[in-house]
């Protein structure tokens, strides 16, 4: 086994080089500014983890030198550590994207506060990436479970908050503050998982054994005769596939519903902007229902919770148009998708989704018709007069305005009063629609900055 010892030494040397490069990279990132404390915590974790792994490889060298292990055993031991290296690289990518120059600081600070109010003991890292994608993932739990397998990670993992969410936004659109309303959908995912909503909603879904049964002969004819499954086995497989798909689609629809309860109409408007320019409206996948279905759920929840008939014509028309689209038949490709769609039967199950998702939020967190009407009345006139709407009230007694209210006021101006807003701007900013829109985004970003500073200042002043 002498020859394999040489190979093992080479592998260890290469891995140690990689880890050293990682530590160097974390040093380089140390001098950058991040808007979230989470980035620094993660940076410290990556560095500590890389250093610990480096030490562990020294230990492995000694074990290999003893010559007592078979090649397979050596490989298994080394792989236990090596598989973490690409993962640490991934974490470094998140840290890099969360540099304050990539992700707008004015947005992230109030967003951090908001997420903290929705999910206690949490922190976020907002990472701007070049991909056209919004996503959320919780890291602390993953790191903690990994540290059970790899004890080298344990001490650095203990520094992490209970929940550390990585929220990715597209870097090209990082300043387009209004469409970041879709973050409410991503938060919906976090809440859906945390409250185990899948287990609450799923029992109300009829899995439509009748439709699955009808599928069996069709799928059966498509099988390779040599390895064909029995009818019973096929039916079991199909039931499992449909159940998995229903669970995943429900998760998306549930996150949309929570998003509407958190951010109100703003989630609907931003989701339309983001999603309609991403995929075909009928396209679905194993994990995502078709956009048409998602829009249907969101618009129905809005209609049930908001006095749409009192809204201005522009909003009423927008909602009515999308409502009509939601009613159109969906051209689903695969047969399982059709069955999944029938199982979900939104017409029947919407109330279940609506009440389950609404039930997990307290009154303070829930954005509702009353708040929306008040925001339109108080905040929209400010934006139209080129005044940020980050605070209201008398001097010395001003109150900070919450993130969902600011975003909703911004959407209202954009959809209903944009020309009035434009008319206030200087000719260069009126020249094109996008130039005017940029100014609106900047005004909203300033509103968010003022709202956050007002609260943070008070906290610091009282924290003697």
């Amino acid at each position, binding site marked *: 086994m002498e020859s394999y010892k040489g190979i093992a030494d080479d592998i260890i040397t290469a891995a140690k080089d990689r880890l050293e490069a990682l530590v160097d990279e974390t040093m380089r990132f140390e001098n950058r500014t991040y808007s979230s404390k989470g980035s620094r915590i993660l940076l410290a974790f990556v560095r500590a983890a890389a250093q610990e792994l480096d030490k562990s490889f020294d230990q492995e060298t000694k074990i290999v030198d003893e010559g007592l292990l078979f090649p397979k055993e050596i490989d298994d031991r080394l792989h236990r550590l090596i598989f973490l290296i690409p993962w640490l690289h991934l974490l470094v990518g998140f840290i890099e994207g969360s540099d304050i120059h990539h992700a707008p600081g004015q947005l992230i600070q109030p967003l951090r506060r908001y997420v903290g109010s929705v999910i206690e003991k949490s922190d976020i890292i907002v990472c701007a990436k070049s991909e056209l994608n919004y996503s959320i993932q919780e890291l602390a739990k993953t790191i903690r479970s990994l540290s059970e397998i790899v004890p080298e990670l344990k001490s650095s993992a203990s520094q992490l908050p209970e929940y550390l969410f990585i929220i990715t936004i597209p870097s090209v659109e990082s300043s387009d503050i209004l469409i970041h309303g879709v973050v409410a959908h991503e938060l919906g995912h976090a809440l859906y998982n945390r409250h185990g909503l899948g287990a609450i909603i799923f029992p109300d879904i009829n899995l439509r054994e009748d439709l699955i049964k009808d599928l069996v002969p069709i799928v059966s004819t498509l099988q390779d005769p040599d390895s064909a499954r029995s009818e019973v086995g096929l039916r079991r497989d199909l039931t499992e596939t449909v159940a998995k798909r229903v669970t995943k689609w429900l998760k998306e629809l549930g996150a949309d519903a929570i998003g509407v309860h958190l951010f109100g109409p703003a989630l609907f408007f931003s989701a339309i902007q983001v999603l309609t320019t991403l995929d075909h409206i009928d396209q679905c996948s194993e994990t995502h229902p078709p956009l048409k279905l998602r829009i249907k759920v969101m618009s129905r929840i809005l209609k049930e919770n908001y006095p749409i008939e009192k809204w201005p014509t522009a909003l009423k028309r927008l909602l009515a148009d999308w409502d009509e689209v939601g009613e159109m038949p969906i051209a689903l490709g695969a047969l399982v998708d059709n069955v999944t769609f029938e199982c979900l039967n939104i017409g029947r199950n919407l109330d279940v989704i609506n009440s389950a998702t609404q039930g997990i939020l307290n009154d303070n967190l829930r954005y509702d018709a009353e708040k929306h009407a008040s925001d339109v009345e108080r905040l929209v006139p400010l934006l139209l007069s080129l005044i*940020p709407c980050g605070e209201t009230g008398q001097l010395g007694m001003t109150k900070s305005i919450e993130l969902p209210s600011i975003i909703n006021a911004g959407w209202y101006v954009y959809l209903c009063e944009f020309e009035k807003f434009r008319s206030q701007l200087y000719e*260069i900013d009126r020249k094109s629609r996008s130039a005017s829109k940029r100014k609106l985004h900047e005004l909203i970003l300033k509103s968010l900055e003022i709202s956050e500073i007002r609260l943070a200042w008070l906290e610091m002043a009282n924290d003697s």
Partner: protein
Amino acid sequence: MILSADRVRQLLDSPPLKIEDRLVISPVLDPKNQLKAGSASIDIRLGQRFYVPLRAKISRLDRLSDDHDSNLERYKDETFVPIGDHFVLHPRQFVLGESLEWIRLPGNLLAYVIGRSTWGRDGLVIATAIAVHPYFAGVLTLELSNIGEIPVYLYPGSSIAQLIFTSVESGSTALPPVPSVFQMQTGPNRRGSDIEDAAILKRFRKKLK
């Protein structure tokens, strides 16, 4: 007539019903200290964004040249310094900063931006273009320069300048709210590149060649 701090407080406290007639300064984080009794100004704070000129990327600033606007884009590096952190301004360095406060003036007020003497004694010059005209809406761009001998730490959120308000008397008709080039200034700004009479000056230059 210059407005006393007390009068400014009144205007902020009991604003006119019509939004366009209001004086807006937002946020005023510590009204008692920013509007000191007996003074005739309001203190304003340093904001979180800076434009730092990149000398290595540009050969000149020539407001008569056709590529001036595109030059300006290459000229700056935008830096965000959150409250709690600092920006080091070195001797002879020039950067653009912003006020933390959003200012909106009604048609009957004009304001002057003046540096605070505390900072001036450290070598910091805060603004050179100091007049803020009626109907201005935005953050103030602060032209920050260290004319001292040693580096100065700038802290976003600290009181760095003061605004002095004076009333504006209109002629036969009230000033109309015409949006200016500095309207909706949402960060440190180098805008306003068109110099007056540029076309005439260019003709002069052509004649000399």
